[in-house]
């Protein structure tokens, strides 16, 4: 069994990292904050040229036909760059949802446009997760759940109300809309979309955590106190080491969750919840530690630390908070909704469940 990512997958990751380092430096993230939409359709088109929005789109519709095990590394890079574009909703959630709905006409209408960078799709997570829909203001199509059905809604037919957000890159809206037979496009597993969104957030949190650690290590190596770099003090370096341990531990869970989503295993949801909760905890811990390591300068607007701190916080709330995901894990454990094998544990002598 192969547990490592392939050379091709690592090259995909490097390609996206090189692209984002060149085309989406932190100055570009900040510049987006000054625009009305906070998004750049021109940049979205470039992102499509290298293949990101269409990564999960089937080849027959002009995409790359890959799966979440390929996407997860790309999403890590999006987090590392604090990319302010709707990759999660469009690339990670909407594409598989459109495929799952099985509406050929809808697929033919939207999947090629998504792959080409000509369409952005916003997806509602459902009221149990969040009453808000991210990026509805730039969406060409809204996929909204209602009463167990999915509705494909024209943005022109809805009323949007912008909501305050801690992260200037996060654009949240309440959507006033009326479901009807004309908008209903089928049914889909609500949990599957939540899992895809949560997995995408967890993957981005890894990149956010990595970046916060890198920034802190660079600062602790450069900033001197008592004639030596502050990183030489155990009180500083041990905290950063703890951040690295948490992010690395979360990384294993995120990769496991990506496998579970890609293969639709029956422990998918609990794997995703563990990954989301752990990756969020790691990124938020890295953010808090980074602030302590930087000291006063970390509180300033000019220092870039807050770009990633805010992203860690906003991703923690998106597609189910850590509390929501922990509760889902607890329900699975206490109610026995999932077999013990789902958690990597098998009681001695207990019969093994058949693999999914």
């Amino acid at each position: 069994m192969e547990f490592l990512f392939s050379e091709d997958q690592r090259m995909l990751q490097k390609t996206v990292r090189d692209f984002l380092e060149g085309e989406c430096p932190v100055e570009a993230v900040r510049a987006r904050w000054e625009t009305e939409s906070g998004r750049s359709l021109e940049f979205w088109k470039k992102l499509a040229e290298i293949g990101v929005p269409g990564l999960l789109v089937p080849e027959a519709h002009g995409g790359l036909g890959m799966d979440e095990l390929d996407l997860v590394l790309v999403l890590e890079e999006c987090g590392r760059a604090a990319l302010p574009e709707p990759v999660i909703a469009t690339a990670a959630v909407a594409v598989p949802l459109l495929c799952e709905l099985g509406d050929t006409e809808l697929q033919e209408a939207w999947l090629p446009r998504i792959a080409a960078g000509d369409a952005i799709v916003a997806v509602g997570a459902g009221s149990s997760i969040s009453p808000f829909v991210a990026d509805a203001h730039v969406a060409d199509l809204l996929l909204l759940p209602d009463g167990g059905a999915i509705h494909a809604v024209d943005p022109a037919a809805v009323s949007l109300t912008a909501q305050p957000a801690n992260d200037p890159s996060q654009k949240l809206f309440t959507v006033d809309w009326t479901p009807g037979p004309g908008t209903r496009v089928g049914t889909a597993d609500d949990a599957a979309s939540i899992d895809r969104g949560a997995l995408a957030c967890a993957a981005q949190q890894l990149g956010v955590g990595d970046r916060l650690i890198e920034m802190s290590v660079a600062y602790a190596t450069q900033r001197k106190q008592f004639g030596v770099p502050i990183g030489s003090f155990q009180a500083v370096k041990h905290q950063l080491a703890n951040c690295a341990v948490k992010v690395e531990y979360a990384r294993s869970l995120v990769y496991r969750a990506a496998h579970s989503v890609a293969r639709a295993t029956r422990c998918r949801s609990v794997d995703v919840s563990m990954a989301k909760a752990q990756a969020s905890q790691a990124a938020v811990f890295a953010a808090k530690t980074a602030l302590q390591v930087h000291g006063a300068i970390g509180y300033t607007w000019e220092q870039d630390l807050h770009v990633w701190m805010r992203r860690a916080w906003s991703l923690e709330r998106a597609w189910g908070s850590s509390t929501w995901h922990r509760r889902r894990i607890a329900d699975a454990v206490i109610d026995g909704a999932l077999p013990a094998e789902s958690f990597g544990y098998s009681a001695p002598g207990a019969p093994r469940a058949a693999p999914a």
Partner: protein
Amino acid sequence: MKVLVCLKQVPHSDARLDIRDDGAWIKDDGVKFEINSYDTYALEQALRVKDAGEAEVVVVSIGPDRVTQALRTALGMGADRAVHVNDPEAEGSDPLGVAKILAAVAAEESPDLILTGFMSEDGNFAAVPPMVARLQGIPSATAVVQCEISDSSVRVERELEGGAMEVVDLEMPCLIALQTGANQVRYASLKGIMQAKKKPVDAKTVADLGLAGQVGASAVKVVIEKIYRPDKGEGAEMLEGSTGEVVSQLVGKIKELGLL
């Protein structure tokens, strides 16, 4: 048209470099490598020729297994096939040795156009491109910042000293060495990366090219005696006092030097 692009893999610009125990080069264990940035402009120029019409783009590089990644990246960006000269006997070659290998590959490929970077970021000799042209007996132009390529000739604009520019016409086959910033280099696409693994990479040895005993460390004419980090300069003056006092002293020093 066939275009041959010569690529060199060099240490990443952010890599921390340590000097080898024999002092003759850097330790490359654990160092991250990338395509020499000058060569990326050559590759981009070749891909533009391909985009504009019928052209086959072949990339060639010399070095150990790690060089495969550079070739794969080039294939992912759109090159059609690659030649990898992977032979321990080629290690330690000086610019002439490298030029002999590249010229031998060029002789096998018979390209209409050879594109290279102006120089490599690690060696900085800027010697290989004109040597390849000389060995091939074809015209060349270096420090090229702009090219207009037609079916049988190339008009280039090249940098001279003092900000002057020169326009040169070359008949094909010819070699063009591109200056940094000559164009906007594209990124590899994810689709291109996936397609790259199906594109051929032709492995060659020095013997395959008929150069046994003629290249490598044993055949060098240029010997690197040592590389070293220069000593830190003496005479730095630390300004002390409050912020106001330091600023006042600094302004005084700048005035003393006649810079204000």
